């Protein structure tokens, strides 16, 4: 079931005072972020590993596979992308398994801003959203003007969602206010488009930073907090996503707003995807088991999801020749 609540921007929000006060200025923001409870790395990895042993079979597996497929942001972010490539991707997103027409379509496709027109034309009213990266993706190393222009290209071309990157250099240098302002500015440039904020957790390097980055992005109005660009390693991992799921859960407990999470990069198999869904289910809650609140930024996992789905339905294992490469 899809939820489409009205977009709430930070200026409209009635945040509780302790969260409002946190964004009064950079030093308040810094105090707030550094005052968040720490994350014990060994403990969180232990819990993530424990949840990863859940045995999801039969009907619950089929439900998970369908859900996972419907959560995929099918992605191509290569220098070599062409309109042909993007068109093929869009078709695949709308009809992932031509031999099983009841397979859900993916949530979105994700492309570079200059590919948005092609994507929009192809996807039309299919229900598959167009997401575009922006803000000098993947490095985020440019001026705010350039980042806003980048965003505008995508928004003007009809993107439904913008996947921006935060300024990791500013974050690691402790300039949280700078990071915050950039997100707010890009959120404004998004208009009605939903904003995903990529933390690039691999560069943040500690779970404590992932927690701080998550809260910073939520305070700045992110609709999604997203792990990675997929361009560096490590990208998404289960323990990192645990931290982010806990953040949106805590955010909802404190503000009554439900925000979304997107792991990206490193999710290769259906097994991985199902493990993430277990984490969503047990860390955040069943309310997040919806493409509006959780996405997978991935490409190759879709075929594995399709093959596993087939195996569940057909009763035997599938093979690579039975799924399309594009």
């Amino acid at each position, binding site marked *: 079931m899809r939820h489409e609540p009205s977009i709430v921007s930070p200026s409209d929000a009635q945040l509780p005072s302790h969260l409002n006060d946190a964004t009064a200025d950079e030093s308040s923001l810094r105090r707030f972020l550094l005052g968040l409870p720490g994350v014990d790395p*060994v403990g969180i*990895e232990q819990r993530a*590993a424990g949840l990863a042993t859940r045995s999801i079979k039969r009907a619950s597996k089929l439900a998970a596979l369908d859900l996972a497929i419907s959560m995929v942001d099918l992605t191509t972010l290569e220098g070599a992308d062409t309109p042909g490539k993007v068109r093929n991707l869009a078709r695949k997103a709308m009809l992932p398994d031509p031999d099983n027409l009841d397979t859900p379509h993916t949530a979105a496709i994700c492309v570079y801003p200059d590919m948005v027109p092609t994507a929009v034309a192809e996807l039309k009213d299919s229900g598959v959203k167009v997401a575009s990266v922006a803000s000098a993706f993947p490095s985020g190393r440019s001026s705010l003007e350039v980042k806003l222009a980048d965003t505008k290209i995508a928004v003007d071309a009809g993107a439904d969602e913008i996947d921006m990157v935060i300024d990791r250099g500013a974050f690691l240098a402790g300039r949280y206010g700078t990071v915050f302002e950039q997100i707010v500015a890009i959120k404004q440039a998004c208009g009605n488009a939903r904003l995903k904020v990529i933390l690039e957790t691999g560069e943040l390097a500690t779970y404590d930073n992932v927690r701080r980055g998550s809260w910073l992005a939520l305070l700045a109005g992110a609709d999604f907090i997203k792990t990675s660009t997929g361009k560096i390693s490590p990208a998404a991992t289960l323990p*990192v996503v645990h931290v982010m799921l806990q953040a949106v859960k805590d955010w909802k407990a404190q503000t009554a707003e439900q925000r979304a999470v997107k792991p990206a990069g490193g999710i290769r198999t259906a097994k991985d995807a199902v493990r993430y869904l277990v984490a969503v289910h047990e860390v955040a809650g069943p309310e997040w088991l919806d493409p509006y609140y959780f996405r997978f930024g991935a490409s190759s996992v879709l075929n594995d999801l399709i093959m596993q789905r087939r195996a569940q339905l057909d009763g035997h294992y599938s093979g690579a020749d039975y799924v399309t490469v594009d």
Partner: protein
Amino acid sequence: MTHLAVSKTYKLFIGGAFPRSESGRTYQARDSKGDFMANAALASRKDLRDAVVAARKGYAAWSRATAYNRGQVIYRMAEMLECRRSEFVELIVISTGASSKVTTAEVDAAIDRLVHYAGWTDKLAAVLGSANPVSSPYFSYSAPEPTGVVGILAPTGSPLLGLVSVVAPVITGGNTCVVIAAEEDPCVAIAFAEIVATSDVPAGAINILTGRVTELAPHLAAHSDVNALDLTGASAELQESLEQAAAETVKRVYVPKRVPDFSAAPGTARLRAFLEIKTVWHPTGALSLSGGTAY
């Protein structure tokens, strides 16, 4: 005119002080010829109770002292005993009737015994402890800690060396003790208490009671605030009933298998008997997020 001796009053040694027994009782200490030596205090169970209180109080200071500091204190006991060497020889000869030669050897051995244990305090952790190579991302170590208050029945027949040999290993590990001295040589025991009192030993770390072992020991064995017992000085008949009483509070009980030869080099059994091995675990590693990529 010959000097009229001022006889010493032999009292108990509790909490760093020398009180009389609260019961007001004494018993006659006699020398090897059967002649009167002194009226030794006859400790009551209330004295014992007070001694345990003092030992528990002294435990806080003694166990928290650094191992180095404890070693220095025990070494000072050796210094004090050394400078009163001839006095102890004389006292023991009178009390036991042993020859001067044998007694001198005993006193020398007692001094050396203290020196030996003084050198142990800061080595126990290295010998008995370990860093544990656990197969999970934790730093784990095990280290010895004192068990607490130890009740000691001092051996008969070796009033100084035997006494030192049962007390020293107990305090070396950081424990405090309540000692029931051998009945027949109370003067030696209390003279030793004077050594303790002049050695910067914290009040209550060592407490010495003189009196009837059969009267006092059962209360010691049953006392809930005593963590362990050394039954070296218990007769076979007494030993079993004391062990039974000790079981009520799951005390650690040390009973030597045979009569010890205190003149020989001590092993480590007496040290280990009154040490607890504590194991600690602490998460470690995780300097980046790649630890999570295995999932």
